[in-house]
C-alpha cells in the first residue's frame, strides 16, 4: 500500500504533469490562460489576489528550503534546529496566513459575484477543492507539528521527496510520517496531476520578463524566409 501511495502515485502524477503540459501546449496553446476575471470584479480582487499570490510565493520558498535543502546544509552554515524551526513557523505561518486569507477572499468573491461565478468552469471548481485542501493541510501540519508534538519532516518527508527526483525513493519514510503530512503530500501530487488541465498553467507564463523589457521590441524578419511561415516544398525561391 505504501509503495503504491508514496511511490507509484507520485511518479504517475509527475508523469501526467509533464506529459499533460506538453499536450496542453501543443493542442491548446490559445487556451493557455489565467482566465482572468478582473474585468468582472475589481474591489475584492485587489486585496485577495496579491495576498494569495505573494503569500503563496512565500509558501513555495519555504517548501524549497524545507524540502530541497538537506538538513545538513543548513546546519553547516550554523542555522540551529531551534532557529530554523522558529523561522519556518513564523515566516511560513505569516505566508500561510496571507495565502489562506487571500484564498478565502477569492473563493468568497468567486461564489458571490454573479459574473465571476458564471465565468467559473467545472475544472476551476475541482482545482479549487484540491488547492484549498493542500493549503489547509499544510497549515494544519505547521500548526500541529509545533503545538501537538514534534515531527521533523526534514528527516522524513524531505528525504523522501528528494528521493523521488534522484530515483531512490523510500516510501517507508512516508509511512512513518503523521497522517497530516501523508495527506498533504498525496493531495499535492493530485494537484500536480490536475495542473496541466487547469488555469494553473499560468504559473509557467507569468510575464516576469516585462519587468526588464525595453519599451519597444523590434523583431526582424527571419533570415531563412520572407513570410511568417517557411515556404512549402517546391515553392522555395529559385536563387536559393
Amino acid at each position, binding site marked *: 500500500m505504501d509503495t503504491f501511495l508514496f511511490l507509484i502515485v507520485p511518479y504517475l502524477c509527475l508523469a501526467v504533469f509533464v506529459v499533460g503540459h506538453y499536450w496542453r501546449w501543443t493542442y491548446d496553446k490559445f487556451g493557455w490562460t489565467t482566465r482572468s476575471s478582473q474585468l468582472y470584479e475589481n474591489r475584492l480582487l485587489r486585496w485577495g489576489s496579491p495576498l494569495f499570490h505573494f503569500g503563496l510565493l512565500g509558501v513555495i520558498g519555504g517548501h524549497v528550503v524545507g524540502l530541497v535543502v538537506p538538513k545538513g546544509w543548513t546546519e553547516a552554515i550554523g542555522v540551529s534546529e531551534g532557529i530554523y524551526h522558529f523561522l519556518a513557523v513564523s515566516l511560513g505561518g505569516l505566508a500561510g496566513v496571507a495565502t489562506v486569507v487571500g484564498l478565502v477572499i477569492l473563493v468568497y468573491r468567486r461564489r458571490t459575484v454573479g459574473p465571476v461565478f458564471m465565468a467559473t468552469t467545472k475544472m476551476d471548481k475541482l482545482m479549487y477543492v484540491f488547492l484549498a485542501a493542500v493549503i489547509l493541510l499544510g497549515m494544519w501540519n505547521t500548526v500541529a507539528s509545533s503545538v501537538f508534538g514534534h515531527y521533523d519532516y526534514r528527516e522524513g518527508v524531505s528525504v523522501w521527496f528528494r528521493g523521488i527526483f534522484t530515483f531512490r525513493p523510500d516510501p517507508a519514510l512516508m509511512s512513518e510520517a503523521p497522517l497530516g503530512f501523508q495527506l498533504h503530500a498525496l493531495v499535492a501530487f493530485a494537484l500536480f496531476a490536475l495542473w496541466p488541465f487547469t488555469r494553473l498553467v499560468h504559473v509557467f507564463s507569468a510575464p516576469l520578463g516585462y519587468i*526588464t523589457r*525595453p519599451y*519597444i521590441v*523590434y523583431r526582424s524578419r*527571419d*533570415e531563412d524566409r520572407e513570410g*511568417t511561415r517557411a515556404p512549402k516544398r517546391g515553392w522555395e525561391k529559385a536563387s536559393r
Partner: protein
Amino acid sequence: MSTTERPTERQGSGTAGLDGPLSEALVGTRRFFTRAEVSEDKRSLYAKGGRSGDSFYRDRWSHDKVVRSTHGVNCTGSCSWKVYVKDGIITWEAQQTDYPSTGADRPEYEPRGCPRGAAFSWYTYSPTRIRYPYVRGVLLEMYREAKQRLGDPVLAWADIVNDPVKAKRYKSARGKGGLVRASWGEAAEIVAAANVHTIKQWGPDRVAGFSPIPAMSMVSHASGARFTSLIGGSMLSFYDWYADLPVASPQIWGDQTDVPESGDWWDAGYLMMWGSNVPVTRTPDAHWMAEARYRGQKVVVVAPDYADNVKFADEWLPAAPGTDGALAMAMGHVVLKEFFVDQQVEYFEEYTRKYTDLPFLVALEPYAAKDGSAAYRAGKFLTASDLGGTEATAENAEFKTVLVDSRTGQLVVPNGTLGDRFGDSGAGKWNLDLGDVVPALSLLETRDDTAVVDLPRFDLAEGGDPVLRRSVPVRRVGDRMVTTVFDLLLAQYGVEREGLPGPWPAGYDDVDGLYTPAWQEPITAVPAEKVARIAREFAQNAVDTKGRSMIIVGAGTNHWYHSDTIYRCMLLLTTITGCQGVNGGGWAHYVGQEKARPITGWAQMAFALDWVRPPRQMIQTAYWYMHTDQYRYDHYTADTMAASTGTGLFAGMSTADQLALSTRLGWMPSYPTFDRNPLDLADEAEAAGRPIGEYVVEQLRSGDLRFAVEDPDAPENWPRVLMMWRANLLGSSAKGNEYFLKHLLGTDSSVSATETAEAARPKDVVWRDEAPEGKLDLLCVLDFRMTSSTIFSDVVLPAATWYEKHDINTTDMHPFIHSFNPAINPPWQTKTDWDIFQAIAEAFAPLGAKHLGVRKDVVAAPLLHDTAEAMATPHGRVLDWRKGECEPVPGKTMPKLIVVERDYGAVFDQMGALGPLMEKLGTTQKGITYNVEREVDYLRHKNGAIRGGAADGRPSLKRDVHVAETIMALSGTTNGHLATQGFKTLEKRTGQLMHDLAAEHEGKQITFADTQAAPVPVITSPEWSGSETGGRRYSPFTINVERLKPWHTLTGRQHFYLDHDWMQELGEGLPVYRPPLNMTEIFGEPAIGTQSELGVSVRYLTPHNKWSIHSEYQDNLFMLSLSRGGQAIWISDKDAAKVGIKDNDWVEAVNRNGVVNARAIVSHRMPEGTVYMHHAQDRLIDVPLTEKTGRRGGIHNSLTRILVKPSHIIGGYAQLSFAFNYLGPTGNQRDEVTVIRRRSQEVQY
C-alpha cells in the same frame, strides 16, 4: 509672475530617459541578458527573427474574397458593406469606404455602418436560420390525404378550407409548433393551390401581399408584389401602416415625404432634433450632426427622456410625451409676433407670399355655434368660380384660388394653382411666377370691416369654453366676407394687432392666453422663457442665413393619433421662416422613410404595370382595422374627434362608417371591394350586355351588390390568403397583435377588451353577433430566420439573406445607389425572393390555366393624386350618393371601375418578362408620363429576349440582375435620358426652364455593374423635388423654389390651411394643438399615475431599438449580448419605486389589448409616467408565460391597437387624394397606456 520650478528637461544628455529611476534600473539590466541589440537609450530592443507567432493573427484575418453587399429591409442607413468569405464560408463584414466624395469643403459619407450591420453575418449560419420549406404538420397531412383522394391540388385545398372542422384543426394550431419539413415542390404547390382556389371561389382581391420599404432591396420587394399584382391580389401599403407616413406632408406639400440627405445637415446653421434620436436610429449619419457643431451650428433637442441625442445638444427641451404640438404652437406664436407683426422681415414676407398659401383668400362661413348663436368660422378658399365673369367659367375654375394684389387692391387668380395643372388652358401656366403681382399677406390695411371668427381649442381637459372668438380683418366679395390665411393664422396663434377686437393674450407670460409660451408650460413642462428664446433664435438664424434653420423630426412626434396636427404645428416654423426648399433648412423627417430613388422603374416591376393596369393597392391600416375586427372594440364614435366648431357632420358615425363612406366615394381603396367575386361580376355585366360602370351602379343601388367593407365579417368578404416577405407583421408592425391572432388567425390570444356597446356600433356596416375567428386560410411567410410571424404561418419558405442575392438599394439619407451581391450561393434549400416567387408562379400557372383560364376582373380603384381625379370634390364639399346628395358616377363620386383581363395560365411567363404595356402606355410618375420605347429596346439587348410562350420576344426578367437593370433603365434617377425627357415634359406644363437640371447626365445609364463597382450618385429627376445637379447636396423642394414649380396642392403653394369639410369638422383647418387621446375616457383604462394592486398606470411608448433595426434584428446573438438579452421595458426610478420594481425584475404589463412580460430596466433617464418597450422585440427570445393568462407574453404591439383618424382617409380633393403610401390612415400607437407591475420572479416557459 511666479516662476514655477520645473524639473530640468534632460538638458545636454540628448536622449530620452525612462519613466523613473526604478524603471531605469530594471530595464537597464536587460542588455546583459539578451543577445538582441538594445539601443543606447535602453528603450528599444532589436531581436532577430521570432515572428512566427504572427501567423496566428494573419490566419485569423485571411480570406478568399470580398463581396459588396448591404442590409435590405428598412434600415435607412443603406450602408455599403464588404462581406468577407473564407473557404466558402461568410466570416465577417466591414464598412465600405468608397463612397464618392461630397466635395472639397465638407465631411465625407465614408465610412458608413453601425454595430447592428456589423453583426449581420451571424444570421447566415445561426440556429434560427430557416434552411428548408416548412408546412404546418396537420395541414400537410390533410393536404396529402385530400390530394391523394381528389387527384388535384386545388380541389384538395378546397376540401380542407371548406370543411369547418378541418379548417379549425390547422388554424387553431397556429403558433403552437408543429411545422414539418416539406419539399420545395410540395410547398410551392400548396401556396399556388390556395391562391387559385381563393381566386376562383372568392375573388383575386381576397389575396393580399405584404412587404415593406422597397427602397432597401427593390428586386426582392418586387418579387412577390409582381406575382400578387399579376394575379389581381392586393398589395398592402406600409408607410402609413407603420405610422411613419407623416400625413402632414401630403396635407402641406402634396408630397409623400421628401427630405434632405444627411450631408445637408452640415449646411444648417441651427438644428433642432425633435422626436428623432439620430445617434441611435440614424447611426451612420450622426457624424454630420457632430461635425456641423464644429462649424458653429447650434443643436437643440426636444425629447421627453434623456435620450442619446441629448448629449449632443446645446439645449434640451424635455417636453412631456405627445405635447409637442403645444410647444410648437407657442414657438409659432413667438415667431409670428416678433417677425411678422412687431417687425417685417423682407426675406420671410417675400418667401411666404410666393411659396405659401398665406396670401390666399378664405371665405368666412356662417354656422350654428354650439351656444345657439349665429357665428362665423373659417370656410372655403375663395376660387375663380366664386368671382363671376369669365374667370368663373374658365376651365377648372373651382380649383383656382384667389389672392389680393397689394399694389392694386384687385383680386387676382395667380398661376400655379391646381386649376392650371390639368386641362389645356393651364399649359405653360402651372408655375409660381407672379409677374408684377405682389400678393397681400394681410387685409388689415385695406379691410372693409372686421369679423369675429370661431376657433376651436382642444387643450381643456374638462370645463371651459372650447371655442375661441377672435377677429380678423375682412373684405367683402359679393355676399361673402373673406380674409387671408395669414390673418386667420394670426388669430389662431393669438397674435394681437391694433384695431382687431380680441380677446388676445396679455403677453408671453399669460397662462390663459392661447398659444403663449406661458400657456404651454403647464402642458409640456418646458419653461416659457426657454421656448420664447429658442423660437427667436431659430427664426433669427433663418433671417441671418436665408433659411438655413432645420428641424429633424421622427417617430417620437409622428406616431401619435394626432401626428398630422403635431407636424403641422412644427412645420409652420420651418415654412414661415423660408427654410423649405433651401439647402440646410426645412424639415428632415426620418422614420421608416423610404426613398426608392429609381421609383418609376421599381413601380413597373412591383405592380406588373408592364402587363396589366391598374394594380390593387390597399391602405393596410384600414385593411386590418376591419379584417382583424378591431372596429368591434371601439368605444367611441367618430364625433368624439369633432371640434367645438363642427356642424355635426360625423354625428352617429363610427370609424367603420367613415371607412365605408371613404370607400363608396372613391376616396380610399378598399379590398376586397364587393361582396362578390370581381371575376363573376365582370362576367355578369358582360352577360347582361351592360357597361361595367352602369351595371355596378345599378346593382349597388338595388342593394344586390354591396361593398365588402359594409359587412367585413361575412365569409365572402374575408381576406383568405396573405403572403409576406421581408416582413414580420406579428413580431413587429401588427398594432393590435392579439386581435390578429384571435380574428385573423383563429388561435389563442390575450385580448380582454369588451365589444362596442350597441349605441356606438356602426350604422352602415353590418354587425354580426358572432365575430368570426380564423378568417385567413393561408399565411405564407418567406424569411431567413424564425420570427414571430413564421411560427404562426402555414407555409414557411426559406429565403436567402442579404449576403446571398443580387439586388439594389437606395435611401434618402445619402444620394447613392449601390448593390447587393451574393457572397455565397443561398445555402441549404434557401432561395432568393425573386426565385421563390418564380417557383410559386411556375406552380401556379398550370393550375391557373386549368381552373381559371383567361378571366375579366373588375378593379375598383380610388381617385388618384397627381391626376385630374384630384378635382373630384370642388371646395372639399362632401356629397354622398348613397344619401342622394349626388349621382353615383364612377371616377367622380365613387371609385373608378376598370375591367382588366387576366391570363392565369400565363402568370409564370409574365413574371419573367417585361410586358408590352411599356411601349403602349409608357410609364407615369407624379403626373409625368415617359416614353420608354428606347429603354425597352436597350433591355432586350441587355437582358436578352424571351423565346416562346406568352412573353415571346419580350426582354427577360428571369434573373434578379435583369430586374435590377430594368428598374434602373426605366427611371430618371438612374437614366439621364428619361430625366431629361421628364423635365422637358414638365416644361410644357410649367413654362419654366428645367431640363438643364439633368442635362449634365443626359447620356448616362447607371448599370448593375456600376453599382457593383462602387456606390453611384443618382441623377436629378422630376421624380423628386430636389436638385442634385453639379454634385449638390439633396434638399427637398429646391426645384419648386428655384424653378418656380408649384407644389402638388390646391393652391400650388405650401398649405397652412385645409378647407375640406372633414378638416373643418375636426377643427384642423389650421395648425392646432390636440393633446394625446384620453384612453381613460375612450376605453376606460386607468388614468396615468393611478395605482392599484394591479400596478401603476403609465403611458406606453414603443420607440426604436438601439440593438436592432429591421434588417438586423433583436434575436442576433451579438445584439442580445450588448443589450439585456430579451424583451425589456424601460421605466423611471420614480414609477418603479411606486410599485416596488427593481432593475432587471420581471414585470407584467397589462391592458385591454393584451399582456407583455419583460425585464424591467429602471433608469432615471426615463420621465415619470412613461415606459418604453423597444420596437420589434420578437416573442421568441426569453418570453415567459404570463400570470394573467397563463399563455406566452406578447410583443410590444400586443398592448396597442389600431385607431383610425378621419383626416387620414379623406380623398378625391387636391393634395388630399390617394396614392400608394402617399396618403392613408396611420397605424399610430403612441397614445396607449398600460398598467405595469412586478410579477412573480419565478417564471415558467
